């Protein structure tokens, strides 16, 4: 077995003294593990940082074997965000979610380009990177079969004034239909309905919305919590918002 692809580093663990066990989110082969010989060494370590884009060649005698990777750098995203706590936390969080949420060797090419776009935005410190981050989490849900229905109101069928999402069904609810149930529904931030700009509060709402369904549909069935990196990103976002509020 031998194939060539490219991928994003999701995690790398030391394996013995010299090697590393690499989890790579590849374009054509999904989340795929492999051994990197010399991966614990000084040369390979900078490449094996979470979020880096690598060109890879995987080889094994049989397809069910762990196999080994030969890697080359394509774009070292991790280095571009190391100095910013929030950008670093979001890169770490996206990789943590993919590592925890995707099945092994289950291809999801539709997620690959949006992930690259998100990382390019992080590297460029683009103003709308938080919106892209939240959209990426919703795309991950949709890709795994749990997409939210934000097109029309689950109660009236109308497209007007959608303001909430049912935490049970993942369908949008209009402000009028929500009525006294509103406190029990999840707020739907306007930027997810096609708006371009988003306030910090709306991003926090988006993180809460996506986090709820990731927990419920992807992680709860296997009794796993949200990845620590995702929790940290949401906490950090909330903290920055509160600091700005005080100032």
């Amino acid at each position: 077995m031998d194939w060539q692809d490219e991928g994003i580093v999701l995690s790398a663990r030391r394996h013995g003294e010299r090697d590393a066990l690499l989890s790579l989110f590849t374009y054509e082969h999904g989340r795929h593990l492999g051994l990197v010989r010399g991966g614990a060494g000084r040369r390979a370590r900078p490449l094996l940082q979470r979020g880096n884009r690598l060109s890879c060649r995987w080889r094994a005698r049989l397809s069910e074997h762990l196999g080994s990777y030969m890697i080359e750098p394509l774009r070292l995203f991790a280095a571009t965000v190391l100095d910013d706590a929030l950008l670093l936390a979001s890169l770490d969080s996206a990789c943590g979610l993919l590592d925890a949420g995707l099945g092994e060797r289950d291809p999801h090419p539709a997620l690959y380009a949006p992930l690259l776009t998100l990382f390019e935005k992080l590297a460029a410190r683009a103003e709308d990177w938080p919106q892209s981050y939240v959209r990426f989490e919703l795309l991950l849900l949709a890709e795994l079969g749990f997409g939210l229905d934000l097109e029309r109101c689950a109660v009236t069928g109308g497209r007007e004034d959608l303001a909430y999402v049912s935490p049970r069904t993942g369908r949008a609810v209009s402000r009028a239909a929500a009525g006294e149930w509103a406190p029990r529904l999840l707020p739907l931030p306007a930027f997810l309905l096609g708006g371009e700009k988003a306030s910090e509060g709306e991003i926090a709402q988006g993180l809460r919305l996506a986090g709820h369904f990731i927990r419920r549909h992807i992680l709860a069935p296997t009794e796993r919590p949200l990845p620590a990196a995702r929790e940290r990103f949401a906490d950090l976002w909330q903290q920055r918002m509160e600091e700005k509020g005080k100032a």
Partner: protein
Amino acid sequence: MAAAEIDRLIRLLARLPGLGPRSAQRAALAMLRRPEVLMTPLAQALLECASRIGRCRVCGNLDSRDPCTICSDEGRDAALVCVVEEVEDLWAMERASSFRGRYHVLGGTLSALEEVGPDELGIGRLLARVAEDAVREVILGLGATVEGQTTAHYLAERLRPLGVTVTRLGQGVPIGGELNYLDEGTLDAALRARRPVG
């Protein structure tokens, strides 16, 4: 077929980092050939370290004294603390001989994969030390890795309310390094950390 004692020695040596069964066998044979010169002094040194070396209760360094030699040195600036991941990083800083403050050894970095959180790293101990010892500046000497810098940002957040200056080591072109041979990540960090000449 080696004697059981030799077998045991080889097995124990092979558990050390950097040594496999073959190299452990070579080391054991070298010691057995020159017991007076290699084996007895090594055994004595091992026993001495096992009985006398421990963690410094202030900084986490390994030493025969507690507080360690660095923490007890009155000539060092107690208001300047450099936070490092492991004892070998402290040794590296000491080799450079350019730092005259004190240290704090975390014993690792925050890592979701390895399930290492703030409690496992004794971050509370560092915060208490900074508050009690009137520390003026904390230098974060952590690795330029995702986990190292995540830990650095976390520490900076926790230290800021204490009113202490938090700095980190510079990142960029190494001494003797040529741009042509640097990876793009290091170049990117170097560009971001550029400063006026002169």
